[in-house]
């Protein structure tokens, strides 16, 4: 980085900002999972860790000046795009190359079928693959968060606390008195009762 101009330095920082942010989020989340005493705080840390990973993936697929990954839908209406697609298909029927039949992103193509020769490669689209991987991860993430929260509720029902050290104390006490069965029994019986 010797002798970079201010602009170049800023661009370098900008280019790495997503990795730094995702690293910081990963570390915050992991630190919370290890050192926080409260189980719900640990789960929030787990979610932050998860978003750090998602941020890494999604930002890997980002491109400067790219369109969102939805083909042949510029900033104008459905209708004109459908027309564009039809025009492109007619062009293909007329014997032109199949690649040209891919619907153009430029909206002017709706009016000028002759213009409908833009290939897909000319418009830059964001890489859709990381989006697919992460989209499912978010929904699975909330399902696993729900499962983890259910376990937290179960821990609270069994030991009367969601602080890690208190739970550990309760476990140690019950083992020392060898009354672990009675503790569990009481709460299990108590739960449907209450």
């Amino acid at each position, binding site marked *: 980085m010797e002798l970079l101009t201010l602009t170049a330095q800023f661009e370098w920082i900008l280019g790495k900002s997503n990795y730094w942010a995702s690293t910081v989020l990963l570390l915050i989340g992991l630190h919370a999972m290890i050192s926080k005493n409260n189980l719900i705080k640990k789960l929030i840390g787990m979610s932050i860790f998860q978003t750090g990973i998602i941020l890494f993936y999604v930002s890997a697929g980002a491109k400067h000046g790219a369109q969102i990954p939805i083909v042949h839908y510029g*900033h*104008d*209406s*459905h*209708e*004109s795009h459908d*027309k564009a697609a039809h025009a492109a298909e007619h062009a293909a029927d007329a014997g032109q190359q199949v690649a040209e039949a891919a619907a153009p992103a430029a909206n002017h193509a*709706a*009016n000028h079928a002759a213009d409908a020769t833009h290939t897909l490669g000319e418009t830059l689209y964001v890489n859709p693959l990381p989006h697919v991987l992460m989209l499912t991860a978010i929904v699975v993430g909330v399902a696993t968060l729900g499962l983890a929260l259910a376990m937290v509720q179960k821990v609270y029902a069994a030991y009367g606390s969601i602080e890690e050290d208190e739970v550990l104390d309760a476990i140690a006490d019950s083992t020392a008195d060898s009354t672990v069965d009675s503790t569990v029994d009481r709460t299990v019986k108590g739960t449907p009762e209450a």
Partner: protein
Amino acid sequence: MSLFFDILAGSLMAAGLIFFVGTVTGMLRFPDFYTRMHAGGKGDTLSTILILLGAAVHVSEDFFHDPIHQWGVLLVMVKILGIAAFLMLTSPTSTHALMRAGFEDAHETDETVVDKDQDGPSLEELQSRTWEERS
């Protein structure tokens, strides 16, 4: 024509921003929960609706340029107006819910904002009533 739409959209958005500045100032500076809620509930809804209206005007510009090919933007405009309508519905509801929640959580009012000469039970008396008594 284009200039007209730009000015209309721009002024709507600017008005929304002014109200949002008011909201933020109120939420940062007001002394107690109830007054902050007042700033947050009113200014937030109004500024949101104004900025969304500005966006809707900006979007609808394309339609007036080329009504035959661009009528699809009307759908987008209607959706933006729909967002504004639903925010007008849901945002006061959440304000109401939160106000009630804060009341039940026995938040105290700041003495600088309470009218001492009012009639009727004080806030603390109301809060000390049970659920059944209140409703």
